[in-house]
């Protein structure tokens, strides 16, 4: 494993510097495409054209609705499991050094996580229905 800090500004290392240059190149490409499109593209505005497309029917009202509640539930479950995923990933890189003690602690944690998943499953949190 190579630390990122080694030769951080050296163009011969595949480090963060290289990533930054690549990001700039990719951004330049995207900007050039958008610039060309703005330059070459047609520019004829009309009220018909700029109306939101809803299958030819005149839209009624704004499209800024409140999100249905099940999406929030998914977001909350995601937050919980993602944080725990980060915990598992850090253990995974060094699991052999931590040996059986680390494995026992981690399997307790994962079993607890599974129990939590089964709990929200039984409570109906994972069923996609109107609350």
């Amino acid at each position: 494993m190579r630390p990122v800090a080694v030769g951080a500004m050296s163009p011969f290392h595949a480090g963060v510097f290289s990533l930054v240059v690549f990001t700039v190149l990719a951004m330049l490409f995207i900007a050039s495409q958008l610039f060309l499109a703005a330059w070459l593209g047609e520019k004829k505005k009309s009220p018909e054209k700029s109306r939101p497309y809803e299958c030819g029917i005149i839209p009624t009202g704004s499209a800024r609705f409140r999100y249905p509640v099940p999406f929030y539930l998914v977001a909350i479950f995601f937050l919980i499991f993602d944080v725990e995923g980060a915990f598992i990933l850090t253990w995974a890189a060094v699991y052999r050094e931590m040996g059986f003690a680390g494995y026992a602690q981690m399997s307790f944690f994962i079993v607890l996580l599974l129990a939590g998943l089964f709990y929200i499953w039984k409570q109906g949190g994972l069923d996609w229905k109107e609350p």
Partner: protein
Amino acid sequence: MLLWIAGFIILLVKLTIVLGVVLFLAGYLVWVERKFLARLQVRLGPNRAGPFGLLQPLADIVKMLTKEDTVPDGADRAFFLLAPAVVALTALLMFSVVPFGKDITVLGQRVPLVITDLNIGLLFVFAMSSLSVYGVALGGWASNNKYGLLGGIRGAAQMISYELALGLSLVPIVMLAHSFSIVDIVGAQQKYPFILYQPLAFLIFVISAMAESKRIPFDLPEAENELVAGYHTEYSGMRFGLFFLGEYVHMMVFGGLLAVLFLGGWRGPFLPPVVWLLIKIFLVALFMIWVRGTLPRLRYDQLMTLGWKVLIPLALINILVTGAVGLM
């Protein structure tokens, strides 16, 4: 200093070539997909621009550049204009951690054949794939279109759900390779590719990565027969093109990741490493197109059930089993 400038020029040339090849292949992947899908559906596909329609990607670019870039009434202008760039940029950045060969020597200096070998390479991929959710959700929300909004929130919920399975399925790979660096992961597959050790992780990864790239059977955010085109309904011209580019680059990134994480990366007999990597990417892309031509779309509750009740528990159990076997 002179050496630094020379190195910088080499770096620029390398990165430009990589970017050019990725964009070129993404363009031709569109052609491959249209042609192969057409064959699966007993059609001819594009055959007007050039022999076998080979100039079709060029014609598409010209068309997209000369079309009007419309912004619908009541749209949130800044987010609307920015969202496609987010999708395209994150997809391109994801490709930067995929190694495509051993180091080569230029001017007596080692030049690594990878854009960036971060020691957290795998986490970088997760981060970028999470960021691309913003492009989808904001693009759908900002366009002031009901279909766009529905596609956007569906996309956000689907992508975050499958990201969990994606992340957890790769934990055994990190355990086998002892590193998050993709270069080290390829290095650890010197003897056998990881697909032989981790067939279950491979399966979970393939399914959840297909859901991440929003393709059939997981294309609910853009389900064309219920949502018009979902989150990119209101986009036209090159901004629509950038969404498209993002999707096809994402397909290539997925092929590349599958190759480096499970199929031994650039390793292979006889042919040069880059060719092997491209062959693997191409086969994965063909597989995805085949799946698109074969499977129907899932229903939303089936999608959520598959992600939360099947893939996540399986991935967690797979971690436990891998840990136990590894410590024996």
